[in-house]
């Protein structure tokens, strides 16, 4: 299950991040790394971008990026 499979309002825990180094580092600098708790805040109309909260940070990302984050429902 990945971040892209979650619905608005659902929470999950990050299991692994399969992205390439640059993106992985980028995620990590925002606090999105293994073990982090995430919550889906909003999804755009065309299902192309989503807003995710990690700790006190809110992140916007494309579904393509969200697919690289494996999560586990909590």
């Amino acid at each position, binding site marked *: 299950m990945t971040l892209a499979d979650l619905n608005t309002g659902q929470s999950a825990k990050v299991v692994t991040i399969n992205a390439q*180094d640059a993106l992985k580092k980028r995620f*990590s*600098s925002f606090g999105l*790394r293994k073990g982090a708790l995430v919550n889906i*805040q909003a999804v*755009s109309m065309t299902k192309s971008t989503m807003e995710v909260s990690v700790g*006190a*940070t809110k992140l916007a*990302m494309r579904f393509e990026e969200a697919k690289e984050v494996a999560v586990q429902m909590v």
Partner: protein
Amino acid sequence: MKTLNIALVGQPNVGKSMLLNSISNSRLRVGNFSGVTVEKAEVSFVFHGTQITITDLPGTYSLSDYTLDERVTKDFLEHESYDLILNVVDATNLERNLFLTTQLLELNKKMIIALNMMDEAKKEGVCIDDEQLGIILGVPCVKVSAVTKRGIGKLINRCIDLANFNQELSKLIYSDVLEEELQNITSFLSEKKYKHELDHRTLALKLLQENKKTYKQMHDTPIWVELLPILREALSHLYLHYDTKNIDDIFEDERAAFAKGAVVETVSYHKQKSKDITQRVDALLIHKIFGIPIFLFFMWGLFQLTFEIGSIPMEWIDAFFVALGVAAKSIFGNGELGSIIADGAIAGVGAVVLFLPNIMILFFGIALLETTGYMSRVAFLLDGFFHKFGLHGKSFIPLVTGFGCSVPAYMSARTLKNDKDRLITLFIIGFMSCGAKLPVYVLFAGAFFGTENAGNVLFIIYIMGALIGLGAAKFLKIFIFKGKDEPFVMEMPKYRLPSFKLIWHTVFTKSLMYLKKAGTFILSASLLIWFASNYPKNYELQNAYAQKIELTSEVTQQAMLANELNAALLEQSFLGKVGKFTQPFFAPLGFDWKMSVALETGLAAKEIVVSTLGVLYALGAEVDEANDSLIGEIKKNIPLASAVAFVLFVMIYLPCFAASIVFAKESGSYKYLLYLFVFTTIVAWLVAFAGYNLAKLF
């Protein structure tokens, strides 16, 4: 006097600029110097007998080289000389902010931490033990609020104190496993009494982090033979413990754990977090259905403001420059000197200064979008659509700005962090017809479609330009700036009320830069055009006409002859020769040499296209788009098909000289300007050719 150089570092949206503004306050002497592409701001002032210089580095989430901003910051911190790092952190989001702090600690520089936004943190019930945090990090932490100005004096005093004392070593302590390996290597280096510019712990750290430079340095020294097995064992222990062979990952984990630990030990929450205002505002602003209409409404409002309010001072500025030109002619006479000052310098610079009000309003709007946090929401809304064309959600600001003027549009493309995204955006900004192209469109639309349809034609022209631009973006993405799409991962910062002082400061510096440009290279370009259209002189022709004019007594006849003379002179001027020389290139589009010249002078500024056409069609230079007789002349001399091709060409080809220079600066290389020239000329030619042949069918 003692000097103190401070590097101001922090993540984006932590109130760095605001803090800088509060620190320097009225003592402000801002020297905004732009680097290659990203600006660093420097502020200098005297405090209690110390000359303090603060360099405001671009905000960055971490010290990697993912984006241009990050690279600028990283390069500065690693290679420039400064006395201490002032790390600004957002007290309401400490853990994420401390992640950058841990990377800064590894630089082994003197450092002080400003816990900013304490006022906001208090409201949210966040309580931070700054003393304890300072002990854990090994650097002083000062609570401040840039908004209420609390703690600012203390912060500066601590900076000065810190500069006077010897450097304390960083206290970044890793997990036991990593510390043990570090200890092994450090003690080996100590036993061998290895000499190096760095201390042994730092060196050991760099070895474990697989720092290329350190490996290169040590590789050829005798100690390497013995060091290698120790290092290998240390790494294999770490790999085993962390279950990964990626050393970067291991250190990321370590830093994250440290930051988390520091927060757990020093931060407490006194009351339930107050209601999330940001979330409630977002529920409306990024609403699935209403989000985009709301955004469009804001943009519409901004443009209304830009053009409605902007047009009021524009009239004054216009009147001022006309009066100045008349005054210059009366002082310097109607001869060469008067002409070069009035028709060259004043007319050219005046045409550019004219747009200052529009530019100020537009910059005000953009600054507002940026500082409130709304910009990221728009990027979120539009990314889906823009992405289809190979653009990034954030491209919309430069593109929309491009309808006003390409110069600020190119500059605002800086908000795009990725090089390829930025380049594609820069390349298609010109497709969004700028305000200066409007006179050309108005002239031709009026000439061929009458006043009742001109408005619709204008609208079609603008829309068509934008659509061709999107197509061009797709083309560039597929064939030129190809490669995998850059990820779109962006922070959506909290909504915050903007500081109008700060916004005014931004608008003011940007306007100043714009004026400076008008006074420098717009001035030189105007003089050049003036020269090329006035030389070489042909006195025989002038004398012949002077006699003819003397012989006729009728005033209208005289005026007509004078216009004819102007046209004849222009035809044999350098500019005229260029036009004749390049005409074959434009012949397939149905342009005569006059239209060709008009396009070429338009390279200096698009407004000049109309005035050149006016001169060339023998009406004298005092022509504007509302002049009925120029419309008549155009109708008489230019076939519809050529006119269509002309408008299409103007729509697409290279933006004005000023914009081209800015483009070169923002893209980082004159090479790209050459590409832009070739690209836009080819597209303009092809589109105009197609338009010409289509129009001929009707």
